């Protein structure tokens, strides 16, 4: 088990595996996105209150879910890198940030497109909206902090601290609709409870959440390859790799 783990965490092995695994995440993600989009836009019945406007949830909920899940993964990876000094963990954290930022921006964008017809305004300084906007700024802060260091090891350590501190924002986002009176509705899918939406509407949403997650995994693997190369640029295997490509 430990030898297997060490082999996986060894950079050249990981680099090879990431390249091999990526299509197995990417293509299922593409296929499931097509199925989920068709299910959400065509097969699901219109909502009795919100008509066809509710279909925005098929892209809004998965992107909002990814925005916080990716942050959680990034913070855990950063903590692992900081505590056990594992370069690969730092590489994962650094790679997750731009993807997380893009899905946070998408969650905000699709949320605004929901807000205009449903609440009458694109934006309101509502707890859920504000805490999600702060999440976007934390991602930006993390990325610019990294960019401000020449030395990748220093960037890893400093940005890891920021990522860990920023975790405070995650429960605030999650519970914002419960703690404060919010425009934003409560969750439609609860872990320990029956979902409050009908099956015809639910399955395309679950498919879309799975599709977005697989898409994230594929992009993450691609980006980690580049991060691993940067950290290992003086090692033998990277030299052999690039001389093979010149």
């Amino acid at each position, binding site marked *: 088990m430990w030898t297997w783990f060490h082999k996986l965490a060894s950079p050249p092995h990981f680099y090879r595996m990431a390249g091999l695994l990526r299509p197995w995440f990417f293509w299922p993600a593409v296929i499931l996105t097509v199925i989920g989009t068709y299910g959400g*836009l065509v097969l699901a019945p219109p909502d009795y209150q919100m*008509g066809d406007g509710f279909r925005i949830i098929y892209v809004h909920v998965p992107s909002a879910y990814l925005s916080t899940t990716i942050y959680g993964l990034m913070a855990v990876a950063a903590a692992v890198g900081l505590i056990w000094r594992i370069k690969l963990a730092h590489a994962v954290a650094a790679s997750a940030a731009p993807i997380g930022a893009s899905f946070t921006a998408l969650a905000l964008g699709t949320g605004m*497109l929901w807000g205009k017809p449903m609440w009458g305004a694109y934006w309101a300084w509502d707890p859920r909206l504000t805490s999600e906007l702060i999440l976007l700024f934390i991602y930006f802060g993390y990325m610019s902090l990294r960019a401000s260091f020449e030395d990748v090891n220093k960037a890893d350590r400093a940005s890891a601290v920021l990522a860990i501190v920023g975790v405070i924002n995650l429960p605030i986002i999650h519970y914002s609709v419960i703690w404060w009176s919010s425009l934003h509705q409560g969750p439609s899918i609860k872990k320990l409870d029956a979902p409050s939406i009908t099956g015809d509407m639910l399955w395309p949403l679950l498919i879309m959440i799975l599709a977005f997650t697989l898409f994230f995994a594929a*992009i993450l693997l691609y*980006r980690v390859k580049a991060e691993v*190369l*940067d950290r290992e640029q003086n090692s033998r295997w990277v*030299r052999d790799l690039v001389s093979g490509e*010149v």
Partner: protein
Amino acid sequence: MADFLAMGGYAEFVWSSFGLTAIVMVFNVIAARRRLRVSLERISTRVAHQVRTAPLQQANGKEAIES
């Protein structure tokens, strides 16, 4: 078909949401590919440069190591 495109009067909001999603996904693919390409190019120029200057460093011996 026209009914479907009209989205019960919510056309602009629904289609913009899905359009925005497509843009973010395509952007992610392009940005990730570009990121890997830039790293590979940067490292290969560096390695090529070192290969070219390696004999020179051997000739200069000690000075090259110190600098």
